[in-house]
């Protein structure tokens, strides 16, 4: 491999595995269980075996607390960790809006509000690796299901 090829390859991987993603993978936030979850949902990616369980605690229409457990690749687990930071304390309506914006962004939309996305923008590098997009969205679809269960 030439030096240039090597750099190109590193750059491609760096774009997928940005520092913030690996930081969340190594130092997960909100990983564990809630004392009194309003609802929890287990999400599975049957193709690759990624697992994420999201627990939510709702108070007065707000997401008072959130936690996740699971196992899987760095993308699936860091996406879950980053998500919990992004949604904690937000109103359920805002969270649902963010779920829609995030999943649209992962499908290729560039219309997301950069301010609303914040660190989550780092996950757009995954879009160049189509088979990994499901890893990034697993936690978000699971959160959506948990919110549906909580509002029943």
């Amino acid at each position, binding site marked *: 491999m030439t030096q240039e090829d090597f750099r190109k*390859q590193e750059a491609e*991987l760096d774009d997928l595995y940005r520092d913030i993603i690996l930081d969340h993978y190594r130092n997960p936030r909100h990983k564990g269980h809630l004392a009194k979850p309003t609802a929890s949902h287990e999400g599975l990616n049957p193709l690759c075996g990624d697992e994420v369980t999201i627990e939510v605690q709702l108070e007065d229409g707000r997401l008072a607390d959130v936690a996740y457990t699971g196992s899987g*690749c760095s993308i699936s687990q860091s996406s879950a960790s980053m998500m919990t930071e992004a949604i904690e304390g937000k109103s359920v309506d805002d969270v649902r809006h963010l779920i829609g914006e995030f999943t649209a962004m992962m499908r290729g939309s560039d219309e997301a509000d950069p301010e609303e996305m914040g660190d989550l923008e780092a996950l757009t590098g995954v879009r160049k690796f189509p088979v990994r997009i499901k890893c990034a969205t697993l936690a978000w679809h699971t959160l959506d299901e948990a919110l549906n269960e909580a509002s029943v």
Partner: protein
Amino acid sequence: MTLNVARIRKDFPILERKVHGKQLVYLDNAATSQKPKQVIDELVRYYENYNANIHRAVHTLGEEATAAYEAAREKVRAFINAPNIESVIFTRNTTEAINLVAYSWGRANIHEGDEILLTQMEHHSNLIPWQMLAKEKGATVRYVPVTPQGTLELNGLENLFDARTKMMALPHVSNSLGTINPVEKIAVETRKRGVMLLVDGAQGAPHLPVDVQAIGADFYAFSSHKMLGPTGIGVLYGRQQLLEEMEPFMGGGEMIRKVTFEGATWNDLPWKFEAGTPNIADAIAFGTAIDYLSDLGMDNVRQHEAEIVAYAIDRMSKIDDIILYGPPAKDRGGVVSFNFPDLHPHDIGTVLDTHGVAIRSGHHCTQPLWRNLGVSGSARASFYIYNTPEEVDKLVDAVKSARQFFARPR
């Protein structure tokens, strides 16, 4: 090397491909093999020259297509040394062959309280059909455990069965660990006890010399696409007497003898189990794939893979922190499964892909096996006739670079 790999590689156009600017190193052969140009050319020859439905028309094309389709069956018969063509049924793949047995034999012979014996290393295709059957019939499924070395726990074969065991199914070779199972010895026991035995040969027939009569199983199932042939065609070998007694799996054209508004009688074997227009082109090209493997000689194919796997295990075992699964090279097919404590198989797979190295990562359709081993899956390199020691070197370099990439301070 046992095989002339340089010459073989010239027959596989896809091996010229570049991925991410690098020469493709294809090490996902347990999922599907690549196809030689002889097989690809045969598909084109069929569609350009004698495409017609079989067993129906009196015209020339129909006769040629029928002859080629049945010639392919004869090639399969000889390849696995089945006693006659009646015992060789074309299916869509291994999965359909196993479902055929679970449906046609299982529904007539498995009853409430009966036991179906499987192993913990079952591919989902040799697991789900039996779970479905057991649920429907009120039967139970028991699993032969897998040792930490990745072999079946068969201490005292005679204790394996109990009075309720009616059926046993197991893989010839584990797709996740590479373990070659002692199917001949197991068949001796099942025959003694009148237990039906199905061998899932999806990873057996492509890689080992297979003689179904020497193995002595009642059923043996495999797929074309893992052995140089096209997708969409597979084989069920069954003991003729069993097949005679079984009801058809699917109804339709081809499988009937006489049809009235009141009912029908069935065609002779093997066509009784081949309802509808079969996959003619792919069956014929599968015959070409079998010719290719037979010309190489399956003993040589086995020897080549044993050499490559021994080299791969030797080189990979020297990588820091690597966890290798499965038995020693001499007891396994062309599969090397591995993990690192702090690295997920998907992340390994993605980095390897940027090196042009194609491996599989995940559970390989054996979820319960990996759950038992305490992980969700593995990275898996699997080899075939065209793989070289140089490609093993590239794999090792790519794996090392994946480790470096994730260990890099940020």
